[in-house]
């Protein structure tokens, strides 16, 4: 028994020169050949970065901050006027508030449910948010058109 163990223990050294011969496909997919291509698609790959795009970068930032700045005079105007007399203020406020909320929700979804880590839930959250924003825009428009409007509602509920 000791002889066979001895033979088996020296076998790796004897076969070492055969390591560079090509093996079957399953090992070639994962074995690293010096100087050869590095296979991708395993858990050890470095994280990828999104392609640089001004639409999702600086333009997005400028739009977001401009909208936030525009909300200041709009909110002040809503406090001062009555919504039914100035439907333009009501509609602008409704639109701006919903878009501002959508941008804020989107930041939270990207921060906490990024598709890189949550491929299924992240996509559901992103598209669910877009659907809800569309529904909210329609609801706000309907309320402003067929009812007393957002500013008037808040004023009346506040003093009810």
């Amino acid at each position, binding site marked *: 028994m*000791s002889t066979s*163990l*001895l033979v*088996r*223990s*020296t076998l*790796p050294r004897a076969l070492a020169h055969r390591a560079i011969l090509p093996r079957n496909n*399953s*090992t070639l*997919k*994962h*074995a690293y050949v010096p100087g050869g291509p590095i296979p991708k698609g*395993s*858990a*050890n790959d470095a994280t990828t970065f999104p392609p640089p795009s001004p639409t999702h970068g600086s333009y997005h930032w400028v739009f977001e*901050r401009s909208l*936030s*700045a525009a*909300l*200041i005079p709009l*909110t002040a105007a809503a406090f001062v006027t009555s919504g039914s007399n100035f439907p333009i203020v009501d509609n602008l406020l409704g639109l701006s*508030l*919903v878009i501002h*909320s959508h941008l*804020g*929700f989107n930041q*939270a979804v990207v921060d906490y449910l990024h598709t890189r880590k949550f491929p299924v839930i992240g996509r559901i959250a992103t598209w669910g948010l877009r659907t*809800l*924003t569309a*529904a*909210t825009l*329609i*609801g*706000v428009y*309907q*309320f402003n058109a*067929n*009812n*007393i409007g957002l500013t*008037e*509602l808040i004023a*009346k*509920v*506040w*003093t*009810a």
Partner: protein
Amino acid sequence: MMASRALGIGAALRQSALAPRTLRNNAVMRNVVARRSVTTNSLPPSAADSILNEQRLKRPNSPHFTIYQPQLTWVGSIANRVTGVGLSVLLYGFSIAYLIAPGTFDSTHVIEAVQTLPESVKYAGKFILAAPFSYHAINGLRHLAWDSGKFLSVKGAYSTGYAVLGATAVSSVILTLIK
């Protein structure tokens, strides 16, 4: 020579087998074999990824936000997000409710429902709405100041932070007391 000693059962056997006769000791080989017999599994190379993922799931996370000292900077930041999300949930909820059921959620019903509430509940409700709104709006001004390049230091962040807290308190009280 001791420094270049190899490790492993094969090397141990090689060494004891190829050593001079005087040094070869059957007891050594018996000990090596008996103490170090291990079993091996045969796995495909793709198992490397699944083993790695399983190991990563078992690794402990170091405590981060459970032990981070509360500071005006990050508490204020998460409060800005929480108040914004809360107010937006209210806006989205009401708009979608009105879209689905305009009969139940139109202005007359909502105003009537609020009118029937007791005064204390009305004041509490107004404060619960006014405080997040005030904080988010005034902290938004602080954010826009940072975006213009002002107050971008630790002192600046703290002084503006305390100013925001004071202004929020004043504004919430004023808004709650509007009749």
